[in-house]
């Protein structure tokens, strides 16, 4: 394997770590396993915080994982402009760690929801969406119980104003509306980025959307964007 090295962190209770590693491999990257107690990212070019229930999601999703030793390395990597993708529980961890603004709260229906949905890409100005046109609709699955994005009004205005909303839940044709929003998320937000566009968090699961035998394929362009942005061996 020779593609860019993409680390996937395993926290106690991570569940989609193997799936993320598999997706990296299928899309041509070199998967790197990183353990929550590690203090570095094993020389990886990019890092994925996978989905799951780290520490059982006790207290709040991501509340305990953000204290893991490896998170200092993730913060440094992000600081240097390195790509960081938080998927589902990974998104929750990034918010808890302050690497992304806002918080993810109980779904409005109070129930876990596993469903194939669609998201509309809102910006190409992130490492993970550089090959995706704004307005493009991607089929991806969601599966979470705490995915309703909230932020205080100023923060929300800033995220929106700076074009940092990366994905919104939408209809297959790209329309917004309550019936397409699986968790009641503010402004139908499914994913956001930091100000430099190198840290992205999203509730849907692109790693479960690369292999047509077992799901939709809306995750493929995200991995393509990433692998293009970090050529191997840089």
């Amino acid at each position: 394997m020779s593609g860019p090295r993409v680390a996937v962190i395993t926290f106690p209770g991570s569940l989609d770590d193997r799936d993320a590693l598999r997706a990296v491999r299928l899309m041509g990257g070199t998967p790197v396993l990183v353990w929550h107690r590690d203090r570095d990212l094993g020389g990886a070019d990019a890092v994925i915080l996978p989905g799951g229930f780290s520490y059982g999601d006790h207290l709040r999703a991501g509340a305990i994982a953000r204290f893991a030793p490896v998170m200092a390395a993730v913060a440094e990597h992000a600081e240097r402009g390195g790509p960081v993708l938080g998927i589902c529980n990974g998104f929750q961890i990034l918010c808890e760690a302050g690497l992304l603004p806002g918080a993810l709260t109980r779904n409005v229906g109070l129930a876990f929801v596993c469903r194939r949905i669609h998201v509309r890409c809102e910006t190409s100005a992130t490492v993970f969406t550089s090959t995706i046109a704004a307005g493009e609709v991607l089929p991806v699955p969601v599966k979470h119980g705490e995915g309703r994005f909230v932020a205080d009004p100023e923060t929300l205005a800033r995220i929106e104003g700076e074009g940092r909303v990366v994905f919104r839940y939408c209809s297959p044709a790209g329309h917004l509306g309550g019936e397409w929003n699986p968790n009641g998320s503010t402004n139908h937000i499914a994913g956001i980025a930091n100000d430099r566009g190198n840290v992205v968090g999203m509730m849907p699961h692109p790693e479960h959307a690369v292999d047509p035998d077992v799901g939709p394929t809306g995750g493929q362009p995200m991995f393509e964007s990433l692998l293009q942005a970090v050529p191997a061996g840089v």
Partner: protein
Amino acid sequence: MAEAAAGGEPIHRELGLTDEEHDRIVAALGREPNRAELAMYAAMWSEHCSYKSSRVHLRELPTEGPHVLVGPGEDSGVVDLGEGLACAFKMESHSHPSAIEPYQGAATGVGGIVRDVLSMGARPVALLDPLRFGPLEDPRNRWLFEGVVAGIGGYGNCIGVPTVAGEVRFDPAHGPNPTVNAMCIGLLPADRVLRSGGGRLGDLLVLIGARTGRDGIGGVSVLASRTLGRAGRDDRPSVQIADPFAEKLLIEACLELADRGLLAGLQDLGGAGLTCAVSETAAAAGAGAELDLEAVPLREDGMEPFEILTSESQERMLAVVRPEDLAATREVCERWGLISAVVGRLTDDGALRARDAGRVVAEVAARSLTDDAPLYRRAMAVPAGLVEVQADDPTFLSPTVAPGDALLRLLAAPNVASKRWVWERYDSIVQGNTAAGPGGDAAVIRLEGSLRAIALTTDGNGRYGRLDPYLGGAHSVAEAARNVACVGARPLAVTNCLNFGSPERPEVMWAFRETIRGMGDACRALGTPVTGGNVSFYNEAEGSSIPPTPIVGMLGLLVDHRLRLGSALRPGMAVYLLGETFAELGGSEYAETILGAVSGRPPGLDLEREAGLVALVVEAADRDLLAGAHDCSDGGLAVALAEAAIAGDCGFAVSLPGDLPSHVALFSESASRAVVWLDPSAVPALEDLARRQGVPIERIGESGGPRMVFGEEIDAAVVEAAAVYEDAIPGLLGRSAGEPMVRSTG
């Protein structure tokens, strides 16, 4: 003399042991048991652990077959899938705790069945959840239903094992007695099956996972309340709090231990806790065991030896480890954040000896706890009135509802209606191998790195079981086989959960025996041995008992997952009915929902025809002749076609088969039938194949358009049917307005 409790009743009776059973214990020990020993026997000789009422009948089930690597007797059955891979699978009941605390009861049920599969050294890859409740109009039933579903999801989602299929059915008799079963499937290398007999002299017994508390000591708690002066059953709820996070760590740690070859054996701690795990490990190894109760990590202070020995605290496993592997074993556990403790070792004298503070507190022959257990041949009798109910055949009642209205009402009937509300609460895709999740006839899980896949389903029909337990047992196997075949998989093997009332009632025991006879005959005819299962008796409360509720979990094998069939209709296809339709509305969904009659005899079952249908569909799928398939079950042909139309958002126009009255042709539940659809170019090959295999086949129409047209009888819009079908359960729960219901569009 047997020890008497304060109230004068001998303790053994309060522990659920009869006087004869007490005498057996005295004979086995050659003396009176002490309290700890009595607790151990009481737990091990309970119906739940000893199968004392069911064993004589369970022997009648076929258990052997060319793929069977491990049959009944171990924690799970194991079958060979080829290419060096094997599959462990098992089903179990957790109905009783779920009836009083639905969330935790169901969640701990999932945890337990996962550990049964884990203890074979298998990675759990799928869960299924057959459920039975009383009608949702009753708020208590809604509370149970929502709680159970939340608990199953809460556990399965958190351990990262996809819940890929299941069943929900409703029957007033399940109101006070909901049935909550859970099935788990695991994968492992065929040459690395962990068996309980793997230990040898000097091996260490290492307890891994949660601390031990006063959990689920159940009947044995009377020892504490009556003789030790503690408050009693009230502060010993028979429900435990599930800890799926601990289970996830336990799964990873145990699999790493197995992968690294550090395990001589692995046992889950279920009923009768440490006593059961240690005695089985020792007995299977032909050894004895020394246990040091002081070494057991406890959650509470002041636990008595009998409590430690019989506690059923969750999320614990017992590893059998060679002394030289101990350090590595502990290192793995530590890395996963789990407590491990050496609580004993295997000895050569055949005795299970427990010490506390150096003092021997219990000493029994390890084999005695299992081998000396009583075996009952309980009295059996045909239930009064059954013959009359069977004679009251609703097939010949005249219909009062137009066929189109009847179809919509059936699609909205809770037994038939979409269970999306349930399965969208389950993570069905984690692990990345779910080729087909909930919503089809059977789930399909791809075997990673291979073209092969397994197909999974659970089935059981309470009406059939009530009206004719023999047929109820047989149909549950037949329907499961049909479901597996309809995704293109060959049925391989079966696990079951037999949910019944009290075995002490002759009608229940008769029904139990009949069910097993039917199940056994069907399994033999379809070539699917039973590799394990579970019996849940005493499902009685408030003066009502559940009907015979046998649930079959079936495993099928697809040699190429790309050839799997779906049940979503596509336009432009020729639509065929395979099999023959008879005038059989007895026990049908139509009879119950439209005619208000649960009577008559269930449809007949010609097992040779059933095997023929299954073989035909599998071969047609193998040869890539079919575009899709859906079996006929509840609601007959009409519901089967409507479900396919809803799933594919595609209509059809068909004529009715045979010259039966139209409502019979539409809604008869005759067995051994499926609808299939295929590209017209494949028609000659299919017809030829069916003829050669002797399966009746009839081209009934074509697919396409927005409407469902059955001859002159029904003409309904697919979207209308879909709305009725999808909204029924949320409507009953009063949620239709609140939570957005979005249909899958991917």
